[in-house]
């Protein structure tokens, strides 16, 4: 072999490289880039994390602001709402209505205050001065037509009266402690999003995925509710050696990505309630409908011959195979709207996906609930 033949032989062979991409090398490169460009905007993972932290900050700020603003005037305020009456005005109005049987004027705060001032009884005036939110039960006499303006068309509840020695008013008004169920609503619908960590090995935690949750809730009791809905999740996870034993040779690791429709059935218990906020715990079971699974199987680098290959699957279904656990906090933003944060954990009771992996997920749902 002369010089030219040798050079050509080497060149020809060198021009046909058989080099597989090794994800570990990109991780090393990524680390170098992080050091070199620390101020550079990050990739999607970092954007998700920062978006999540931003939303969390906004949510916390909002909750604190509402809590602080409501703290001062919540206790002894007369609410400017036609559906809420002071006790004496309700007596007066109802008495007039019952005796004269004519339509009553719509009561507003402007009307209410002079009426209070004209109250003849000093004791009653004092009582009214510390009246809390008063909610009125429907008139007992069902033969009378409903009050068009004073009595609203939603379930009306009891009232709080600070003058404890006074007996509860009669004439059809029941004064009880408030029902803790949020505003007496029976249904809610909620939309929330979550950054989600998924893993098959706790030591292999990596980048977060995400979940979008549309939730329906039905109250079966003031403290208990049934929940279902639809959750679309993107889960990303890695695993080391020990999986995919059916493959020969067995890969030394894998990177998994899957897109899942999750149908949960949960029961929720509202453990701590007050007028504006609630704490709850929730548990139930989920069915997973795997829309797509992608697995990049990695093989041990051997010289220059490290390599990986992609496996894709669709259509795997797992009925009632995942246990849901969560707890959460809700803060009412109005009569119908609440903001909610709900950390959750999902653990399968059977293998998930094409490779029957123990795919566990955890995250925190942040979103809004609408009650009616």
């Amino acid at each position, binding site marked *: 072999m002369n010089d030219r033949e040798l050079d050509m032989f080497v060149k020809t062979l*060198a021009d*046909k*490289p058989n*080099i597989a*991409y090794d994800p570990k*090398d990109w991780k*090393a490169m*990524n680390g170098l*880039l992080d050091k070199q460009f620390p101020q*550079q905007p990050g990739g999607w993972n970092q954007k998700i994390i920062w978006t999540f932290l931003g939303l969390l900050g906004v949510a916390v700020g909002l909750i604190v602001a509402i809590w602080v603003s409501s703290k001062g005037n919540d206790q002894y305020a007369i609410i400017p709402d036609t559906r809420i009456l002071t006790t004496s005005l309700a007596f007066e109005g109802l008495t007039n209505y019952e005796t004269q049987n004519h339509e009553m004027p719509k009561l507003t705060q402007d009307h209410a205050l002079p009426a209070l001032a004209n109250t003849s009884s000093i004791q009653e005036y004092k009582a009214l001065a510390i009246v809390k939110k008063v909610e009125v039960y429907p008139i007992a006499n069902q033969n009378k037509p409903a009050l068009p303006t004073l009595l609203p068309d939603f379930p009306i509840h009891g009232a709080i009266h600070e003058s404890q020695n006074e007996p509860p008013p009669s004439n059809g008004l029941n004064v009880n402690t408030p029902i803790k169920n949020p505003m007496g609503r029976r249904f809610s619908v909620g939309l929330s999003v979550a950054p989600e960590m998924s893993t098959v090995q706790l030591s292999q935690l990596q980048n977060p995925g995400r979940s979008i949750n549309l939730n329906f809730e039905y109250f079966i009791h003031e403290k208990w509710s049934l929940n279902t809905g639809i959750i679309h999740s993107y889960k990303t996870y890695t695993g080391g050696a020990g999986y995919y034993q059916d493959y020969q040779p067995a890969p030394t690791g894998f990177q998994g990505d899957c897109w899942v429709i999750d149908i949960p059935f949960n029961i929720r218990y509202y453990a701590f309630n007050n007028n504006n906020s609630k704490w709850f715990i929730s548990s139930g079971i989920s069915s997973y409908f795997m829309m797509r699974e992608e697995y990049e199987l990695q093989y041990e680098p051997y010289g220059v011959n490290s390599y990986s290959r992609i496996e894709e699957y669709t259509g795997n279904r797992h009925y009632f195979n995942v246990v849901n656990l969560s707890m959460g906090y809700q803060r009412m933003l109005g009569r119908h709207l609440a903001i909610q944060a709900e950390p959750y954990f999902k653990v399968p009771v059977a293998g998930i996906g094409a490779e029957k992996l123990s795919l566990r997920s955890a995250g925190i749902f942040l979103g809004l609930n609408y009650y009616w």
Partner: protein
Amino acid sequence: MEDLQPILEGASRGERKCQESLYKEFYAYGMSVCLRYAANREEAVEILHDGFMKVFTHLDQFDNNRPFTPWFRKIIINGALNHYKQSLKHSCEVGLENIPELPDLKISALTQLEYRDLIKIIQSLPLAYRTVFNLYALEGYGHAEIAELLNISVGTSKSNLFRAREKLRMMLTPENHEKAYL
């Protein structure tokens, strides 16, 4: 090249996803160059990453009207030559433990020689021989250019090339395989 354009633009803006795409796209090509200049895979990855770092840092200087591959190759080779100059200081410290294992050519006939075997043979050449052989036989540089690039004389360049070929022939011939270590 049209598909590469948005990746290059994104990488130039520092978007990590585009940088990753570019890295994946040119990983095998870059490694094929680096492996020939390096003594082992770890060194090759080091050279490759230095090259990609230069690419990501100076991508705004790249002329989009020209093909990317030659520009990338030039950067990688320059990185390899810098590595060569740094390694010269330590070349006398190379011990037997750092000499890569040669392929068993009794099993693998010359006609069936695989790419990885060839790389191992090239990597087993001494640093100076390997670098000159790469530049002359595979990159197409002349001895005058090589002498300038490596700060050596033309005569040294020719001598190194001669010795590199001699060792390669020995290693590519099974009966002379063991002599290649000497």
